[in-house]
């Protein structure tokens, strides 16, 4: 562009925090999210140690996590189906930082697990699956073998389950 000096006044961190007229504001934005009937039922299932999917009466797709509507038939999903808690690793990564971007002493392995739910073409674009932790050592998670590895859900003991995604501790390899 034919302009030599662009508008904008850059500040270093020190300069910014020493400006007169800085205003601070700690927002209070609190909510009570309702999980809605579908996800509530899904969480209920987790509490009972089951992964529940929802089946479309018209096209037969089983959705995990469950939905209210089938995206293709735009029909309300009706029947619930318990799906296997086994699957294969779609992708896996190793995190060295926390949600607040602080350094973690012990790295966390997380990924997407493609569940063994019938009705999806093997390497098709879509599948039923969950985003969750993987109980796999970091080195193994970085190796090529982890992609496609067979895994199974490791459930927390019944009395520790509260109806949350954390009722599954992680997905561990099926040796």
């Amino acid at each position, binding site marked *: 562009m034919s302009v030599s000096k662009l508008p904008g006044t850059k500040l270093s961190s020190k300069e910014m925090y020493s400006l007169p007229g800085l205003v601070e504001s700690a927002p209070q934005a609190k909510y009570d999210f309702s999980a809605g009937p579908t996800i509530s039922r899904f969480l209920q299932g987790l509490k009972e140690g089951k992964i529940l999917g929802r089946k479309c009466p018209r096209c037969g797709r089983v959705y995990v996590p469950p*939905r209210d509507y089938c995206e293709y038939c735009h029909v309300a999903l009706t029947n619930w189906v318990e799906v296997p808690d086994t699957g294969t690793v779609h992708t896996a990564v190793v995190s060295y930082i926390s949600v607040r971007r602080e350094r973690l002493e012990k790295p966390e392995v997380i990924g997407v697990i493609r569940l063994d739910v019938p009705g999806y073409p093997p390497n098709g674009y879509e599948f039923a699956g969950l985003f969750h*932790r993987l109980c796999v050592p970091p080195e193994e998670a970085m190796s090529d073998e982890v992609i496609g590895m067979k895994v199974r859900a490791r459930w927390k003991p019944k009395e520790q389950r509260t109806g949350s995604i954390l009722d599954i501790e992680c997905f561990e390899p099926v040796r």
Partner: protein
Amino acid sequence: MGMVTNLFVKDRVAIVGAGITTFMRRALETPRELAWEAARMALDQAGLTLKDVDCVVIGSAPDTFDGVHLKGEYLADGSGAIRKPMTRVYVGGGTGVFVPVSAWWHVASGLCETVLAVGEEKMSPAHPHPQYVFRYIWDPIIHRPLEPNLIWIFAMEMRRYMAKCGAKKEDIALVSVKNKRNALDNPAAQVAANITVDDVLKSETLVWPVQELDISPVTDGAAALVITSENVARQVTDSPVWIEGVGFTLDNQHWENRELAFPRYLNYAARMAYRMAGIERPWKEIDVAEPYDPFDYKELHHIEGLMLARPCEAWKLLKEGYFNRDGELPTSPSGGLLGVGNPIAAAGVMKVAELFWQLRYEAGKRQVKRPVHRAVANAWGDLMQAGTVIVLGN
């Protein structure tokens, strides 16, 4: 997509001016002042004043960065919308390219003749760190309890691309090297640098395979375009840049249920835009492109989504210099988000502004070597689900 070329759109729509602020980690200006600085420059470049503007379209991503709720209203007067029709549009990170896309139907519908399209983002107000805001993009009930960091989702997508396409980290790092080098010639650039692949591979590993130099920075900045009908364009400039195709698609929010190696939503958006522009072989007909590059691997991912290369081929062509400024199909000549900076909504507008200058041969030292007639830019957003595409021509 059931959408044939708009043969009956009698009047074409043109970009006649572009303006941009420097991209900065911390700006003194308030968000509305940043919007004013960019929009005023765009109007000056087009030789117009605020009185000539009929409508305003504002793009700004999450309110939780600038820390102002109803941010469209907060940016209104800065974007020139005093006593004017104004709406804010929003597709997460895809907003930047979506702003000129939405401005297109403001003009093509006949509702407006001259539209000021403004993208702004000020991320520095959020403390402790703007990235913390991304804690709230996840599904609040089945994802947030896992305490995910934003970078997790990019790392998972990058890993899937590497696994599916056989691309190594050192192949992908070449994008960061290319874009940061291109940015050395961009006066707006925040993080231009001459780096090597080794520098990328030695930078701090955040969420393997993503390392520090694989990521675009947090940025404050604004960019604006003046978009008009054909007859206004003819009066204002003898080198209008036509908006020949627009496309946008949003997939559902269940990113954990789809193949992350290929952005199907972006491909649908690209087909919509190409169909409108009458383009059948984009890998041949597009001369210069600005694919969205918040992460280095994503430029490759989007090059394939935009059908500028076959799936899993982009990283091989990159190695041969195919996408360099003097290459066969230059990508991100601006320096991209990796080099210029990533003020989210303004980043997409910056990319369209770059193609505006390229197609008028006004990009100075950044001007690509080969002749240019058709260009494409895309933005991407949300949970691996939003694709916005615009096709320009001179």
